[in-house]
């Protein structure tokens, strides 16, 4: 089960938007996600690594430039997207492992 998440600095969680999930929202979006999105498969050696986009659902939020407006009851909260944290659950020969990557330098080093 793929479990990629983007955490905003206030703890709000955005979930990975897969091509299949996008089909029910918009065929054009699904096509874009399929063409440009990162494919989750066995990782190649680092010399052969390829870049790709990860798309996340912004349900419950509104994105404005580098800020997200997060609905919280009767008010909304403005958070800086640069302080977000990407979390990936990956399978390794030693078992499942969580990989966390800071979007900008809000985080010094990670594991």
């Amino acid at each position, binding site marked *: 089960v793929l479990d990629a998440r983007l955490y905003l600095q206030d703890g709000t969680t955005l979930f990975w938007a897969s091509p299949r999930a996008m089909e029910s929202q918009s065929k054009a979006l699904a096509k874009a996600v399929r063409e440009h999105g990162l494919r989750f498969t066995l990782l190649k050696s680092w010399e052969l690594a390829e870049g790709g986009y990860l798309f996340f659902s912004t349900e419950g939020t509104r994105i404005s430039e580098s800020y997200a407006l997060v609905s919280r009851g*009767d*008010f909304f909260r403005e958070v800086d997207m640069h302080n977000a944290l990407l979390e990936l659950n990956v399978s390794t020969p030693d078992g499942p492992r*969580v990989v966390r990557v800071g979007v900008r330098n809000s985080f*010094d*080093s990670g594991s």
Partner: protein
Amino acid sequence: MLRRSHPGLFLALFLSLGACGSPKLKQAPPTPILEAYDVVKGGPEATAYESGEGARLALGLEGLLAATQKSARKDAQIRFWTSYCLALLHARAADDPFLAAHGPAWLDTGALELGDLDNLDPRPNETGHLLASIDNATRALSLMRRQDPELIDFLGQPVPGGAKRLSTRLRLLTAMSFTRLGFDKRVRDALARTPELLSLDTYAEFLDDYGIRPRLRPWMCYMVSHYLRRSDETTAYRFAILAIEGKDRFGVALPKSGVLELEDWILRGANSRFVCPQSETEYLPGQKSSPISGIPHFEYVAVRR
């Protein structure tokens, strides 16, 4: 930063806060802050935390925060105390989550097709709560930099240790949250200010004094062990053993990934080997003492690798 999105509700909340509109700093502490402070203040007098209570307390505090203005001096007290309480509530909730734990209804689960996500076991949203704790602690510490004495004198009850104790707690919790996420940001700054936590003779008393819950103590020992690796490998080893044996020593086990990381350092990463002072047997994962002498792992000594 919070914004009010509904003018009608803004009016209602403004009235309920009473003195919030006063230009003076002195104002009655709002009920959500007093309720949350009873839960998070630490020590034996702290109120027990009921499951599900965190969400209600957090929503009440966030409502207060939304009604304040970032730059308004009159709002500094409410902004500080809501942020302080939210930071501690979220740090606690990392192990007892109240943030949404699974995705929206159309979440694609890849290989596994699930028709009804209500049947999906909720996964603790540890990451979300730790980030929320860091976010609120950062705001509270930023407000403390103004060194306004009235900021602390707000609750109508004594705050043990005053501003120094509050800022130390916030710094330690922030450092520990970063540690739990796998980052070392702010750890050195927080620990350099708390030498009592770095000594095996005083750490337990320090944790008791600061009301650090048993659940967080293995993580505290894990963090200290990391910090001391460069300067004092023997003490770093002993704090690692405290963290690894968290279940026996504090009643709460460190997650397996944390234990494996510490054991990897003990067995391969450290410049020293850690051996039994009598039998010279090395540290054995899964054991608590030397199988030959019976001497506990905690008492092992460092020898040059």
